[in-house]
């Protein structure tokens, strides 16, 4: 757990790692974060305190500048759980509109089911509040565009919860790629594999859709909005482009339990210049887990693992040979101290770490820190909104392509941001 006591160290470490010009220029919020804490804390309301909302709430509670003064959830057990946690200093609501009306807030954090994101975000922005909204942005192109339009008209902060943007490992990888470490990116492969039914326990049958909203078309686009949107965002970010078009196939081949969303998807996104993102996600096998592989003629980056590989590696350390011996219960001499051994099989190459530091966060902590810092400074960082917007549009495109069994292009008439 990220505690106040180690928060300062965490931010300091992050700041040191980010201490290069390129990285800091990509993260102007770092300046706000490294500044003095404000005398007046940022007053926050949180809307939706299910599992993700609770996680964000716990992060916010560690940020001295953040004061959670209100919470909202229309599901009684979540409401009650939150009241027990923070009821002594925050007021509870069942309806977010009442909360927006009654509370004097600076910002809201939204972690509701996907189909509710758009309306709540737009209402909050129109009420003059800054907004953090979990990914994906929304279910339709129109809803996403309306959210961006509301952000623009009100000139408020709109963060979408793509936490990899705030992960120092990804920042370093982006820098390395821009510096040509792997050459021009010629392909991105990404996948997210799980082996579970993606269900939450339902205390009563009439609550099935409320609790397991991810499984039904009316509330979610399934794997595309819940998982793929993160990785499509990474691809957009790395390529500094949005996809031209996408094609793919999706089906339910394992969890035939009444769900409506696909339990496995396969897609190819085509970007300007002919670079492809080859994507798949499934929920019936977890051997390969999740990864974003960035491939170029000089090397490969595996961003989740935080490892980079050279296509033409220097003679590898004899340590790899030693590991191979140990794995095969072999006792033999290993050459150390010279160019003596080159792995024949590239799969044996364990690569180099993108960053040496082990930071125990996927970026969510730093995104919450950044959001609060942005609100405190009144800094509207359009690029964060743009990343969320483009990722969400691309995720919806993928869904459309599979549903219609057609090649789907970036919507021509969609607002450019």
């Amino acid at each position, binding site marked *: 757990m990220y505690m106040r006591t180690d928060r300062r160290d965490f931010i300091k470490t992050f700041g040191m790692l980010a201490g290069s010009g390129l990285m800091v220029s990509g993260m102007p919020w770092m300046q706000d974060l490294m500044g003095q804490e404000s005398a007046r804390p940022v007053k926050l309301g949180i809307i939706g305190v299910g599992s993700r909302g609770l996680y964000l709430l716990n992060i916010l509670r560690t940020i001295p500048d953040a004061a959670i003064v209100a919470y909202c959830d229309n599901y009684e057990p979540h409401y009650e759980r939150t009241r027990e946690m923070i009821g002594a200093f925050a007021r509870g609501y069942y309806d977010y509109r009442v909360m927006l009306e009654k509370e004097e807030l600076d910002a809201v954090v939204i972690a509701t089911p996907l189909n509710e994101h758009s309306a709540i975000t737009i209402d909050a922005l129109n009420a003059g509040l800054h907004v953090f909204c979990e990914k994906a942005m929304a279910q339709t192109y129109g809803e996403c565009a309306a959210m961006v339009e509301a952000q623009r008209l009100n000139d408020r902060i709109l963060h979408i919860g793509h936490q990899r943007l705030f992960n120092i490992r990804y920042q370093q990888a982006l820098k390395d790629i821009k510096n040509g470490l792997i050459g021009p990116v010629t392909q991105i492969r990404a996948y997210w594999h799980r082996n579970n039914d993606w269900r939450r326990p339902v205390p009563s049958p009439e609550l099935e859709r409320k609790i397991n909203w991810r499984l039904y078309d009316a509330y979610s686009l399934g794997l595309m909005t819940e998982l793929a949107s993160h990785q499509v965002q990474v691809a957009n970010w790395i390529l500094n482009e949005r996809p031209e078009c996408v094609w793919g196939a999706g089906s339910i081949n394992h969890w035939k339990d009444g769900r409506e969303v696909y339990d496995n998807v396969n897609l190819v996104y085509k970007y300007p210049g002919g670079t492809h993102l080859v994507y798949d996600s499934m929920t019936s096998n977890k051997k390969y887990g999740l990864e974003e592989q960035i491939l170029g003629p000089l090397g490969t980056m595996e961003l989740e693992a935080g490892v980079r590989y050279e296509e033409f590696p220097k003679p590898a350390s004899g340590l790899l040979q030693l590991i191979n011996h140990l794995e095969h219960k072999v*006792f033999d001499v*290993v050459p*150390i*101290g010279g*160019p003596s051994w080159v792995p024949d099989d590239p799969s044996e190459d364990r690569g180099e770490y993108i960053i040496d530091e082990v930071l125990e966060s996927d970026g969510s902590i730093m995104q919450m820190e950044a959001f609060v810092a942005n609100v405190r400074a009144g800094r509207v960082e359009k690029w964060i909104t743009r990343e969320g917007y483009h990722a969400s549009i691309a995720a919806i495109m993928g869904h459309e392509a599979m549903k219609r069994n057609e090649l789907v292009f970036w919507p021509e008439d969609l607002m450019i941001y």
Partner: protein
Amino acid sequence: MSIFYRQLKSMGTRLEFVIPALEESAGLTLIRAIKDALDELVSHISCYDRDSVISRINRDAGDREIEVTGHLYNLLAEGVRYHALTSGYYDFTLGGWTSRPDLIKDTGTRFAALTSIPFSERISLKDHAVRFQQRDVRIDPGGIGKGMAMKIIEKMVRDAGISRAFISFGGSCVTGIGQHPYGDEWKVGIPHPEKEGPILAEVGLYDRTLSISGNSKNNRRKFGDQGHILNPHTGTFFVGQGLLAVVAEDPVCAEVLSTALIAAGPENEQQILDHFPDITVHRLSNEQKN
């Protein structure tokens, strides 16, 4: 059996760990602690960091007495001790010329002036305070720094309850802790520095550290044919192309001797080795096993 492997960069070098039967989470905790400890060490002893304690000493100790504590005091004390034990072939006060063969030509007179002063009069270390008696004195810890780092790592690994581990500091300083899981020691082959295939010597490491010095192809590319290892008594640099490997229980000892014995040459080796009855030395020629 699970095998924990991690690498990190420290002192400009890749530091690698192979630890059999260690859980990933425990390994990561250990690595993080080691990284912190080495960062702390480097902040004291790095000559490349203008703000390190040693850089401040190098700037100011010619003018006044500087208080030294902790890592740096230990380093200086070890430096003084090894100077005596190696008949002066390990001399960390000549940092201005270490690895700088290009400088000797132009500054030979100053070098001669400095080395003509007895070591004990060049640097004064007493009551946790250091003072240079001559302005040209510059501390370059050289091998002691890496050896101290390995010593710290070794202790932290053992303190974590680990009885078997193999640790490599850039391949030139390698420690084997305990037994190999399937043998009685960690067997290391010292490869030919410029050719793939030949192994020049094999050594066994059971609670021992191997340190290798010499003029590799990379060194020659960087420093030219004259090499980079300074003989403090003559102001000349080692021009041979061989390697020298030392195996010792103490990583600091292994690191210091692998350089000092090259500087001393075979003819002066024995007077040094008389002080170190428990170490093993391999002088390896590039011409072997070609």
